[in-house]
């Protein structure tokens, strides 16, 4: 009896094994008279910007061919596939693969966006370059130091003169006041907007850029913050704010669907009336 139990247990284990599952599957397929699948590879060529600091020369576009049938739908899937299978030296930033971290921001087919959210287009060729007018560290990785410093310069934290109304508890904020922050707090600092702005290209060190100004507006519009006038005065500068000529490339580029141009106009409006 024990051997019978053991035999049944072994057979149960065998059925759940992969080989056994394939056997079962094949039997069904032969019933339906399946045709042999001719997989014609759907090749797409990617022209990717390459520059190596260890062997510096002129930056070039290198071509890689990928079978789209063996690849995920997003550009990041293609980049990872190239790195895994064809060229491990391809360097790019990536983290969450779901469009929330902002690491994989790059220029795909002429438009800035997140590689993990941009679908691979069905054209036969795609060009991938790093974020425009930024210093390239390697391949698609750019130097974001200036961008982060500009964000830091607008002091993106709550500043109060008076202590909280109920000490030790949160500062109350009505739902309508909290709703004013919608469209600004979702910014992931991917730099797609700032690097799409021609004004930021020509004045990267003096103009703050749409991302920093969006966050400046986020703190100006926060009802809990009491340094509104000082914040407005700090950016009321010919270069920091007024290099914005409402080109509105930023709102076109934002991968999260935010509208930095509208918020910069809000700051300009507040400056005029303060």
């Amino acid at each position: 009896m024990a051997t019978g139990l053991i035999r049944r247990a072994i057979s149960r284990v065998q059925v759940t094994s992969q080989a056994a599952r394939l056997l079962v599957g094949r039997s069904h397929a032969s019933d339906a008279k399946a045709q042999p699948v001719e997989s014609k590879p759907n090749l797409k060529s990617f022209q990717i910007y390459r520059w190596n600091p260890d062997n510096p020369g002129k930056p070039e576009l290198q071509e890689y061919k990928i079978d789209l049938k063996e690849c995920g739908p997003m550009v990041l899937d293609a980049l990872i596939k190239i790195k895994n299978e064809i060229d491990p030296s391809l360097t790019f930033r990536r983290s969450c693969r779901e469009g929330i971290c902002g690491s994989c921001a790059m220029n795909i087919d002429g438009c800035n966006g997140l590689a993990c959210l941009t679908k691979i287009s069905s054209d036969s060729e795609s060009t991938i370059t790093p974020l425009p007018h930024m210093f390239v560290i390697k391949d698609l990785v750019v130097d974001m130091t200036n961008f982060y410093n500009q964000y830091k310069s607008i002091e993106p934290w709550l500043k109060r003169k008076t202590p909280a109304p109920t000490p030790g508890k949160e500062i109350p904020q009505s739902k309508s006041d909290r709703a004013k922050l919608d469209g600004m707090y979702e910014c992931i600092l991917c730099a797609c907007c700032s690097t799409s702005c021609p004004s930021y290209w020509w004045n990267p060190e003096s103009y703050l850029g749409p991302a920093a100004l969006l966050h400046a507006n986020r703190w100006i519009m926060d009802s809990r913050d009491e340094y509104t006038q000082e914040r407005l005065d700090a950016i009321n500068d010919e270069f920091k704010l007024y290099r914005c000529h409402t080109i509105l490339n930023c709102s076109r580029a934002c991968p999260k669907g935010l509208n930095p141009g509208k918020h910069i106009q809000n700051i300009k409006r507040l400056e005029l009336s303060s």
Partner: protein
Amino acid sequence: MNILRPLSPHLPIYKPQLTSTFSISHRISGAFLATIVFFFYLLCLKIGLICFTYENFYQSFFYSSKLILISVEITALALSYHLYNGVRHLLTDFSGFFFRKKKIEMTVQN
């Protein structure tokens, strides 16, 4: 080791967007109109304003060379584009002043 990092490509590779095309055309048409007005002013200084009272002046001026006709057409195009885009700018940039004036006073905290 001192390596100069390259600057990533910007103008040559960035796809022309509707927004950026409008903006740069506004600037180019504005600059073009400014030069046209400037040269026309210099011309007026040279020939004297009395010429505008003569009918034949206009015949000779506009048909003296084909270049003038074409540049008048292009100037008209630039002027109309610059005008319409200017109106669009006024409406979109200053809409806050016309529609939400009360809220401005509420948001500026002192």
